[in-house]
């Protein structure tokens, strides 16, 4: 039975889920949700995701929302298949969780705000707040400094192997580098750059890039 992923393929949070499903070789089908037409705020969609956000998944009669919960579920459900995205021990899993939390709380809001102001609002014909975007950029410089230090001590965020902690960063960093003109945040940091090269060249991510037509 094919997993249904509800959301536009261009959006970062559905991409987080799709990247995980591709890593784990789980068949899925994208059910497009038209954000511009506010489909995510209709009463039908709100039954699926009461906060009116994408993605949501449907796997047979099992339903989930929140992209980071979905990736944790599939990484656990298919633990034995494909790369181990969760960590090899209780401590290993805790480190994966720690860096997933960092992505969610120290990284994501800054990227989201910056991309909204510099990329999304202009595409909708509105003015982005450049001052706000610059402030996010400055804070991201400090966050990436911390990542640089961490990645000089470990190949991936949680240790020696690629895990959900790295995967969770893929969509946001792609937006920063390719769409928001923020490539210097990565390129100017030797270890962050090497890490980004490694994780963005994984075949699962490249498959997703083809699917999205980037």
């Amino acid at each position, binding site marked *: 039975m094919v997993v249904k992923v509800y959301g536009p393929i261009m959006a970062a949070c559905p991409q987080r889920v799709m990247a995980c499903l591709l890593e784990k070789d789980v068949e899925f089908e994208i059910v497009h949700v038209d954000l511009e037409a506010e489909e995510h705020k209709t009463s039908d969609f709100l039954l699926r995701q*009461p*906060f009116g956000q994408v993605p949501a998944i449907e796997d047979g009669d*099992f339903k*989930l*929302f*929140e992209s*980071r*919960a979905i990736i*944790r*579920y599939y990484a*656990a*459900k298919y633990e034995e298949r494909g790369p181990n995205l969760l960590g090899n021990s*209780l*401590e290993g*899993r*805790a*480190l994966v*969780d*720690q860096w*997933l*939390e*960092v992505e*969610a*709380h*120290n990284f994501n*809001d800054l990227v989201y705000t910056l991309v909204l102001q510099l990329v999304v609002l202009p595409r909708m014909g509105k003015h982005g707040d450049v001052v706000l975007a610059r402030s996010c950029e400055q804070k991201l410089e400090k966050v990436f400094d*911390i990542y640089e*230090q*961490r990645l000089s001590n470990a190949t991936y965020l949680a240790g020696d192997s690629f895990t959900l902690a790295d995967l969770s960063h893929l969509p946001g960093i792609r937006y920063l580098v390719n769409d928001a003109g923020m490539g210097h945040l990565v390129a100017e940091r030797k270890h962050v750059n090497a890490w980004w090269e490694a994780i963005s060249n994984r075949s699962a991510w490249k498959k997703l890039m083809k699917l999205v037509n980037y």
Partner: protein
Amino acid sequence: MAVKLYGAAMSTCTSRVMVCLHEKEADFELVAVNLFAGEHKQPPFLAKNPFGQIPVLEDGDLTLFESRAISVYVAEKFKETGCDLIRYQNLKEAAQVKVWMEVESQQYHPVISPVVFQFFVAPLQGKAPDQAIIDENLEKLGKVLDIYENKLSRTKYLAGDFYSLADLFNLSYTYYFMKTPFANLINDRPHVKAWWEDISSRPAFQKVASAMTFGEKGN
């Protein structure tokens, strides 16, 4: 050997972990970090958490930061004792716990924490609470609580009919919120109110709540 938790007894995020440790009947030692002296922003502490935030857990040679990651680790390590906070024997229940933990993290926290910050912390920094920020976030919080109300009219707790980390994660910020003039957002929603009374009366939380104060009067 007892785990060490670096943090402060009145801190929301330190309290989050302490409630979890008590629920799991796990021994721990709270090592006070002097926030007012900026201890958390200086190199010895930054070596433990480069983001300069509390809490940090040390368990032997494992060092962890991010209170939610620490809590999940504690719930897994001590899964055989105390309350099962993560439903470790049932993958689908565990998944629902993960969903509603993310809800606290992504939907609830961003709108309740600015209110708590403006009301309790800003004055300590010599600033008046910013009413515009409070008003904006109260409106958003109301919408999130409407969703909680709806969910809690269908299940006893957030992830199902069982208490879990998904409920626990809401405790510390909500505790401070209930001391503001805006507590009616909780009290006006019958299922949310009943849920709050239930989870905040658990002994593990009562132990921690007694130290949770910013020094406000009448506390």
